[in-house]
């Protein structure tokens, strides 16, 4: 049984090696505060090194390097307190992160052969906020050593502090410190930049779509909790993604349109397939896309904090689930999410902030673009890159969620992995969908195999 396979050794608090300057506080931006109700989970799998090390040796090394790397991330080791406006902020008091150590039977390849959402969740520890947030750790790290070789590293954190990009940045930094290599990009903790006054275009028509979308979700977040969700991981190889991109171009009316990006193609594909699965005869269901806005806003890629913006994609009056039109609609929305629009959104959010943030994943199908994450270059052990990575943005209520991120480097630059979270019965139908099967995705993680 799954419960017997993982043995929890201990849980402890890990602090940074150099004490942080006392009295420092870090405010959270309005985008951060918007994500309060969600939390993030990342799991990375590594093969074991040749030459067996003693059980617990790797964990010990990882613990020591975790201490070192936390020196550069004082936000992670701080604790949440409320400022006078009632907003959350971080008190950088170096209270530490929780680290759980675990042992698993078998080796990592066998585990990956039979993993599902429930079992993968056992590799990542998470605790919901206590009634006393001042003593609650915002980050949790779990290191699971496989007895016959292999390692799984799980990181979970409240979305209030980090988005998947910076969670990945942290894992990369931690890996660099373990090796040891010089950390290539120390994180930036500056607040979101305000709109530069000189850039105010007179008579500028604000891009209201973003604001409208956030406004809508603020007032309509009523999660439906009846359906039990499960997650599957599908991997698309390089030329399959290319084929998908080509298909979106093939029946396009304007041949001069630029080729869609892999994200747009795959997002369109899932949009169409999931709509079919949910038995929507006409039109496609409501979907929002989520993009990393660091580049658009001109922020350094090592900016630490939430920088993922959601926007709605509509496509009315569509007959026949047409992949190309779906992809095009997505592409248009992506293009319109420029820095001005995002700045407008941020200003609007600051003015209209309510103290109860919404559950962002609750009303639509969400499709997130995590292509900026560079998880595959994080090596904890010399020359051993991750063999599989999973991302979760929890909790998922409502329709569902798709996360798209790069595949292993061996799969080619266009290879992508998609993690799809849907109610269980819909997932099974999705796996049998014709259109999806045309691109022969490899199922890395399937539906619940352990029929308990």
């Amino acid at each position, binding site marked *: 049984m799954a419960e017997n396979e993982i043995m929890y050794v*201990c*849980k*402890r*608090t*890990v*602090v940074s*090696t150099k*004490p942080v300057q006392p009295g420092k506080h870090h405010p959270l931006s309005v985008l951060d505060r918007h994500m309060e109700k969600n939390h993030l989970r990342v799991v990375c799998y590594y093969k074991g090194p040749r030459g067996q090390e003693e059980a617990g040796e790797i964990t010990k090394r990882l*613990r*020591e390097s975790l*201490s070192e790397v936390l020196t550069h991330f004082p936000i992670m080791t701080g*604790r949440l307190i409320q400022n006078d406006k009632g907003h959350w902020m971080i008190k950088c*008091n*170096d*209270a*530490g992160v*929780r680290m759980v150590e675990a042992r698993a039977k078998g080796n990592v390849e066998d585990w990956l052969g039979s993993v599902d959402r429930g079992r993968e969740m056992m590799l990542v520890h998470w605790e919901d906020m206590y009634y*006393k947030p001042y*003593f609650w750790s915002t980050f949790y790290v779990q290191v699971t050593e496989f007895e016959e070789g292999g390692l799984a590293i799980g990181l979970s954190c409240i979305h209030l502090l980090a988005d998947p990009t910076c969670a990945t940045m942290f894992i990369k930094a931690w890996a660099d410190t373990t090796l040891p290599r010089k950390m290539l990009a120390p994180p930036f903790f500056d607040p979101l930049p305000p709109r530069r006054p000189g850039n105010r275009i007179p008579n500028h028509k604000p891009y209201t779509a973003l604001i409208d979308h956030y406004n809508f979700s603020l007032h309509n977040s009523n999660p439906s909790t009846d359906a039990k969700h499960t997650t599957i991981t599908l991997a698309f190889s390089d030329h399959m993604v290319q084929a998908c991109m080509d298909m979106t171009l093939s029946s396009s009316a304007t041949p001069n349109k630029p080729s869609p990006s892999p994200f747009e193609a795959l997002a369109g594909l899932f949009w169409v397939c999931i709509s079919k699965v949910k038995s929507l005869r006409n039109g496609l269901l409501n979907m929002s896309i989520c993009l990393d806005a660091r580049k658009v806003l001109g922020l350094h890629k090592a900016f630490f904090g939430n920088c993922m913006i959601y926007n709605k994609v509509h496509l009315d009056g569509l007959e026949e689930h047409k992949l190309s039109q779906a992809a095009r609609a997505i592409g248009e929305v992506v293009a319109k999410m420029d820095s001005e629009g995002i700045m407008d959104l941020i200003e609007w959010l600051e003015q209209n902030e309510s103290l109860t943030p919404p559950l962002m994943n609750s009303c639509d199908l969400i499709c997130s673009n995590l292509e900026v994450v560079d998880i595959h270059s994080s090596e904890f052990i010399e020359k051993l890159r991750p063999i599989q990575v999973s991302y979760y943005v929890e909790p998922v209520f409502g329709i569902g969620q798709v996360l798209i991120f790069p595949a292993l480097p061996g799969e080619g630059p266009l290879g992508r992995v998609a993690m799809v979270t849907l109610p269980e019965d819909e997932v099974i139908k999705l796996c049998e969908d014709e259109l999806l099967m045309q691109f022969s995705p490899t199922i890395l993680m399937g539906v619940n195999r352990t029929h308990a």
Partner: protein
Amino acid sequence: MSSESERTATSDGVQIHQSRRLPDFLQSVNLKYVKLGYHYLVSYLLTLCLVPLMAVILIQASQLNPDDLHLLWLHLQYNLVSVVIFFVVLVFGSTVYIMTRPRSVYLVDYSCYRPPSHLQVKFHQFMEHSKLTGDFDDSSLEFQRRILQRSGLGEETYVPEAMHYLPPRPSMSAAREEAEQVMFGALDNLFANTNVKAKDIGILVVNCSLFNPTPSLSAMILNKYKLRGNIRSFNLGGMGCSAGVIAIDLAKDLLQVHRNTYAVVVSTENITQNWYFGNKKSMLIPNCLFRVGGSAVLLSNKSSDRRRAKYKLVHVVRTHRGADDKAFRCVYQEQDDAGKTGVSLSKDLMAIAGGALKANITTLGPLVLPISEQLLFFSTLVTKKLLNAKVKPYIPDFKLAFDHFCIHAGGRAVIDELEKNLQLLPTHVEASRMTLHRFGNTSSSSIWYELAYTEAKGRMRKRNRVWQIAFGSGFKCNSAVWEALRNVKPSPNSPWEDCIDKYPVQIVA
């Protein structure tokens, strides 16, 4: 004279206890120099008296002529027997004297353990872990928080591995691990610095108050370092924070009996199984103060070591107040109503400590104080007794007897109390305060951390005298007096090596 002059109640003047009103003349600055002059006069009195004596002899000798010498020689010849007997007695007497003189005990080197930085506990983590165990109610948590804030401890003190887990995992094996880490860490360092071989160690004394497994901690050391089979090993348990000095005293006595050998004294304490998880306030204080630490000292009675030794042991004075019931119950390990074990500290701890100190310095005073101070004390005593005058008892100025003070860092209150009672200056108690800040209360080894601090600051010069005072359960007050044999530099890998430049720090609240 300046008897009626300026009332310069400044810090330049003699430190006066605030609550007693003294005649004005004692507050004047000039009196300090009079006192100093008197002190030097009495100290060198003998030398001063010798000068006229030498003068007389020289004059007499210069007036001798060969006839007088011849007469002297004849006198000696006639009284040969008495002369021979006199010389025999002299030689015999000197031999007996030399043979029965106590052997000097030299402190070759010592080493204090500095735990790895991941064992450090910050205030927030202390409070967070205490809260998350669920054993403490809100008033206990608040109490611990207040004690911690006013304790004088910094954010770099160390707590054993077992307490860093959530929930904490105290166990016997974890306690053994802590003991091993600390003792072997200190001993490895000591052996590396002194190059002493295992087979040369003839005496081993270990003291650890709260953890006494079988086989003993001294057996653990013997096993690890493969010490020789006929070693005299002792393990002192339950003797509290003053056991460090007791162990030194025991080693000193053994070194009188066993010639030409080395003695290793290891002082430590064990926190792992002694954390109190209950709600009785008097038993919560040790959680906030006691921290991981230990020391290892190498003593020698070989005269060849005099050249490389740092200090010579001058006196050890032990005072035990256990005959008094209140003193006996002052620091008491017991179970609370819920059955949880802890060490409870009574409210009159300070008063009892003061009493124990007085008893100790009454014995120590005559041994170490210069004649000048003893005369003053004696005359004040006589005046009080015979003339029944309302004269305040004279508190001898120990600053004239000692250059450095190592007061056991039991807590801020203890150091404050002693600073007041002995009229010490802040520089004298700096070593104690900074050790409390950096390492917390490491029990019997704290006096060694303080000595290491003084050395690291470069203040230890040749012929400086050091007074180590330790208080402990019982209630005991033990003192050790050392004299520096050279300008002492800190040994390699000293616990203060990486942070001495940050000290002294100002302790707030």
